[in-house]
């Protein structure tokens, strides 16, 4: 697994690397088509881009080479922003991500939906196989367990509260203030909701599709406006929440400068939750414009996190347990075909011996034949009982050498073949 997140890479870099759903499908096809990965799972949100891959022929270097094609905003290598995990660590990492334990806002609910969508996309692209298939399903299950069994996500200090906190540092209180929400995404709506419950007087909603703007506006008792009117309304609102999926900045310095003059230099508070960003960063340099992006909200959010660290520790313990359980189940899957081969080999031998004793057996009546058959089956089963238990145990302990050793005694080799040369 390798990736970058808000912990390692600033928003400038993330907005360059973030993939849209269409791109994710494309990349998944590419990864498998070019023989980079046998299986692949790509998670791309505004806070992280992560690739979980099973490299083709076990050569991790193929993934590294593929990744090196991607570049930062100034054409620089992404190397300093990347982190890597493999084996059990990668599993733990995916679980932590899905459980929102690695999120900017620990316990936030969006990430689970984002992971679920990513799993669906990967499944539909046929990129999930014997390893990532069960793993991705497992991580959704673990996330649900963490949500129901620990306090993570309860009484949480979300991105909405961070927005309200910042607004209060600028305006004191929000009574009589007006806000403009651009985009209908979940994060934007959450901030708008928090501002409204903090006393906001009016909410305007703009969206790429006007119908959706009307829908969201109805939900909040706001007013929908056309996307083309955003610049006109900048001078009439105090707060702008930009969270649309636009790939180019919607709000530029010239418009904001004009709006500030019309506002007689009262402060304008802009929150840019979008990646890629919706507000040109140069806007933040204007005198009365106070612009914050997703990264800036992080430090505000962090203040609210101390109370939840205990819950997070608990959740982490659960994640570790689940990761162990998953590693065990993986090992069991690995050993399954070998056990099958061993059982088949023993059955084969039994049938051979029966065939060899055909002449002698012919003297018996049907009951006698049945009794011999049952007895030989029971004998084989009893003989294999103990070795099979030992193999499963060794597999569960991850002791591959011991598994191979026991199987070798019965003439079963690494590939699950019986090595009898026939």
């Amino acid at each position, binding site marked *: 697994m390798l990736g970058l997140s808000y912990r390692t890479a600033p928003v400038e870099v993330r907005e360059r690397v973030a993939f849209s759903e269409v791109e994710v499908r494309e990349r998944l096809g590419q990864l498998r088509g070019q023989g980079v990965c046998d299986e692949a799972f790509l998670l791309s949100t505004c806070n992280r881009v992560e690739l979980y891959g099973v490299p083709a022929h076990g050569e991790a270097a193929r993934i590294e080479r593929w990744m090196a094609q991607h570049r930062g905003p100034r054409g620089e290598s992404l190397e300093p922003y990347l982190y890597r995990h493999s084996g059990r660590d990668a599993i733990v990492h995916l679980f932590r991500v899905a459980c929102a334990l690695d999120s900017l806002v620990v316990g936030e609910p969006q990430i689970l939906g984002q992971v679920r969508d990513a799993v669906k996309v990967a499944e539909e692209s046929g990129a999930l196989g014997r390893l990532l298939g069960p793993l991705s399903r497992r991580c959704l299950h673990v996330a649900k367990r963490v949500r129901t069994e620990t306090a993570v996500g309860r009484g949480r200090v979300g991105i909405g509260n961070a927005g309200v906190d*910042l607004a*209060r*540092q*600028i*305006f*004191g*209180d929000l009574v009589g203030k007006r806000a403009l929400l651009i985009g209908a995404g979940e994060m934007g709506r959450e901030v708008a909701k928090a501002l409204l419950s903090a006393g906001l007087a009016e909410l305007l909603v703009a969206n790429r599709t006007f119908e959706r703007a009307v829908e969201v506006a109805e939900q909040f008792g706001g007013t929908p406006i056309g996307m083309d009117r955003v610049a006109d309304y900048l001078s009439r609102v105090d707060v702008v929440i930009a969270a649309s999926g636009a790939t180019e900045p919607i709000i530029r310095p010239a418009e904001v400068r004009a709006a500030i003059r019309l*506002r*007689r*230099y*009262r*402060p304008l508070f802009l929150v840019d939750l979008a990646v890629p960003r919706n507000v040109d960063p140069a806007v*933040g340099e204007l*005198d*009365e414009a*106070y612009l*914050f992006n997703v990264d*800036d909200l992080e*430090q*505000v959010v*962090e*203040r609210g996190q101390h109370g939840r660290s205990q819950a997070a520790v608990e959740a982490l313990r659960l994640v570790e347990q689940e990761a162990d359980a998953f590693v065990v189940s993986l090992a069991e899957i690995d050993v399954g075909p070998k056990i099958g081969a061993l059982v088949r080999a023993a059955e084969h031998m039994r049938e051979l011996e029966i065939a060899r004793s055909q002449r002698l057996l012919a003297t018996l009546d049907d009951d006698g034949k049945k009794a011999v058959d049952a007895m030989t089956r029971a004998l084989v089963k009893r003989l294999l009982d103990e070795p099979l238990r030992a193999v499963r145990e060794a597999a569960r302990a991850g002791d591959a050498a011991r598994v191979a050793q026991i199987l070798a005694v019965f003439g079963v080799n690494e590939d699950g073949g019986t090595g009898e040369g026939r």
Partner: protein
Amino acid sequence: MTTIPYILVLLAYGIVSFVHLLPGVAPRAVEERARLLVMVGATVHLFELGGLLMFGAVAPGYPEALSAASFGIAVAWLVVARDRLSSIGVFLTPLSAVMLGFALIAPRHQVAAMDADPVAPSLAAPIHLGLMVAGLAGFAVSFAVGVAYLVVRDRLKRRKLSGLPRLPALETLDRIQFRAMLFGFVFLTLGIVTGGAWAAWSLDGGSWVADPKVWFTAVIWLWYGVALQVRLVAGWRGRWGALFSIVGFTGMVFSLVALDSLVSGFHAYGP
């Protein structure tokens, strides 16, 4: 004028300044009673200063002027520094304490004008001085809040949002800064008018025209007038208001503390 009551007042202002500058060092009991300390200090201060001026047959001189300014700022702190705004006390109480400290060690000089006017009405001096001090107190608050505004603005602009002592919101500071400046301007205007009336009545006109302090004060009055005007007409608020009040107040303090020793005029303190 180092009297025991004055020393106690200075002690009270000093302790509160200390609490403001180094929060968490003094015992909680002291921090919680900062308001009470200043209130008692200011009351004693008022009786000591007013009593000396009105009944103690002491003509206003340099120490009295400083002491009056210190008192005005202490009262301003009491008015402004309630719960959430207490953080701006960082800029006010030390100012008050330092001014009083200066007043206590300053040489006893009488204002030249008092010599020129042996028949000065006993109320003229306290009224003129009192109005000026009220104006100064207003500008002191405007200055302190202006500095706080710039600090908060800087934090928001540099996105330093956590781990710092909480200050009031940007717009709240802007509003208080404007109101305090308006308050100061009104009292400065009244102070100038009473001063003018007093001069016209007791001096034979003419001589006050050449007084540097009068001119300097006129410039300050204009400066604040412009600050208020551009705000009301063009909406130049926030950072502009803060810068106007910081420069204006610096000028006022200069006028109060140093101007008279640099130039001579009838406001100047005689030998």
